[in-house]
């Protein structure tokens, strides 16, 4: 029996837990997406109210600025994630 292959198997088994995601990353991501959608909905509602004379312009500007902040953050994070994914795909195997 080749002893080296069993060493390799042990090493692989030892490093495997490092590859499984720890904590509730999916839940956090879901919460972030929900609050992002809530921000967008709020700004849409405020814009509608402002157009029909129900909200003051300050509320409109604030809602749009909050949305801009949220969208910008989401887009930047998405770009970063896509970039990392493509980097992995380009990795020579």
């Amino acid at each position: 029996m080749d002893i080296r292959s069993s060493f390799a198997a042990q090493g692989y088994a030892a490093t495997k837990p490092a590859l499984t995601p720890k904590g509730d990353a999916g839940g956090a991501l879901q919460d972030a997406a929900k609050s992002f959608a809530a921000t967008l909905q709020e700004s849409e509602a405020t814009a509608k109210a402002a157009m029909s004379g129900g909200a003051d312009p300050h509320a409109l500007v604030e809602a749009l600025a909050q949305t801009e902040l949220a969208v910008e953050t989401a887009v930047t994070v998405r770009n970063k994630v896509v970039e990392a994914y493509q980097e992995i795909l380009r990795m020579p195997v």
Partner: protein
Amino acid sequence: MSDFSNSLQTAVSGMRAQSTRLRHVSENIANTDTPGYRRKIMNFEQVSKDGAKTGEVRSAGISLDRTELSRIFDPAHPMSNEDGNYDGSNVDLVVEIADAREAQRSYEANLKMFEQTRNMSSKLLELLRK
């Protein structure tokens, strides 16, 4: 809520309070010639949410200026007394203009904070873009 969106909200509350103040100033100016009109002074207060102060500001209603009303001599006026005087308003246009200018300056300061917050947040995200 992040600090950025909180400070956006606070700046907007300041702008809203100053525009309410400007409204009261223009009401005062419009009523300069109204007999018996007392000028309105707007009060500010901090906003509390669940017992804690959020740092935002809002209008806390108005109080009326208690200085004496001006006496205007006009015997032809229907409200004049036997001496020919009647009570005018206690609005001083110079004071109102100064108040309006102050509201404008505070509004601009809040606007500047709004702009700066937006700048800072987009600069932060720029870091991720390389």
